[in-house]
């Protein structure tokens, strides 16, 4: 990868919108995700974060605007587990299926070696529970399975929606280390979170949205240089938007 590659954004969302009948879930949303960085995607409940993430990875069709993934229009790209890994739903596994069977089926479909299944199970700490049906999992275990699914192809871009939900403190620390190590290796992470204090320790860049629109995009460093915290920024912006 050249230094120019590192300068180009991995994701460019331009004028993105999504309407569900009369509801504008995402409205003219534009922002970029920097390569090799951890970008935090923040907003109150109903701000449009999850919908926006679904649009960015192609799970939902935009009503308007466009998404560029590595410079190419998303509509023209074919899903590839080595490029993008996604954990948006709680885990996306059938409750009657075991975690190992779930991951093995996905590995087969993605042309990935079966050894990778055992690797990600170990990585997320589910190797001992992998033979159990997902329906019996706790929320934290489902969250880990969702992360294992996202990591299956060892992707360049990891998109995580509320990844700390259900994780215990040890799990949150493990996740923080995992995310930072991926960024250190030049990989990109885009994550949404409501746990601002935790996210502040993890993210490099900050995007705040509300009512489907971007209210702020900037670096965490610029924020802290001005003596402000992520929480202060969030409440300043979203209280104002709600008023």
């Amino acid at each position, binding site marked *: 990868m050249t230094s120019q590659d590192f300068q180009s954004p991995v994701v460019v969302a331009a004028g993105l919108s999504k309407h569900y009948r009369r509801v504008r879930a995402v409205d003219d949303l534009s922002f970029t995700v920097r390569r090799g960085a951890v970008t935090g995607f923040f907003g109150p409940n109903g701000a449009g974060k999850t919908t926006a993430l679904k649009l960015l*990875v192609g799970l*939902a069709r935009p009503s308007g605007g466009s998404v560029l993934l590595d410079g190419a229009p998303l509509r023209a790209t074919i899903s590839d587990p080595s490029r993008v890994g996604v954990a948006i*739903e709680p885990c996306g596994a*059938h409750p*009657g299926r075991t975690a190992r069977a779930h991951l093995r089926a996905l590995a087969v479909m*993605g*042309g990935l070696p079966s050894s990778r299944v055992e690797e990600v199970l170990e990585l997320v700490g589910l190797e001992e529970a992998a033979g159990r049906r997902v329906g019996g999992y706790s929320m934290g275990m489902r969250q880990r399975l969702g992360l294992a699914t996202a990591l299956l*192809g060892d992707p360049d871009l990891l998109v995580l929606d509320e990844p700390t939900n259900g994780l215990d403190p040890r799990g949150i620390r493990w996740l923080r280390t995992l995310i930072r190590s991926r960024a250190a290796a030049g990989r990109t992470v885009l994550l949404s979170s409501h746990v601002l204090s935790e996210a502040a320790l993890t993210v490099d860049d900050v995007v705040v949205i509300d009512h489907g629109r971007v209210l702020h995009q900037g670096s965490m460093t610029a924020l802290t240089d001005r003596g402000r915290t992520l929480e202060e920024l969030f409440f300043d912006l979203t209280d104002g938007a709600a008023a």
Partner: protein
Amino acid sequence: MIALLRGELAKAVTTRTFWAFLLGNAAFAALNAVLVGAASGTLDSVPEKQEAISSLPLLVLVWGLVGVAGEHRHRTAAPSALVARHGRGTLLAMRIGAYGLTGVALGVVVSVVGVAVALPLLAAQPGPDLSAAQVSDVVAGNLVAAALSVTLGAAIGALLRSQVLGVVAVLVVGFAVVPLISSVNEGAANLTPFGASAVLTGATHDTTITAYAAAWILVGWTVALTTATVLVERARDLA
């Protein structure tokens, strides 16, 4: 695309739902064989005896419907799309195809159980015994009907994305609409998937169309609905 087919097949058979339908269909085949072969009076013609080894494609159709609609209920469709390395239409076509293969497995089990239970009972009945060719005709009809019915059910499930809505719709069509059509024009009912399946499996003694014609009618419904579903899928949100 073979990888998608293998992966979808693995998904289909690694839930308890598939095995429940497999056992349920086997139990129904045994029950049908006993009810027709021993408990329904004298069977002295070949079509009456063939009915003892016929299957009920509606049951396997419901398996395809419930399985594929369950992808949306349990939100398992999205992870598959994200690793597929192919477009959504291709992925769905492979999913429906994989369910069709499970239909063959169901057809084999139903036929083996039906033949194993029915033949000893039918031997005690008067009239001609079923020849190997006559048994093979019904078994072939069972297999074709099962494969196509599961495929059709999978296409309906993918189109409606709701297990409850799909099952209710199928039951209403199967037990209200088709009988209504039949009461108006008996031959017209054979043009429906349910009527064609009944002819194909020997569950009806209607001879207005041949088993070959019934198979083509069922193929037509299956191809048309699968094509429509795949085309619609490309324009829909997945999550």
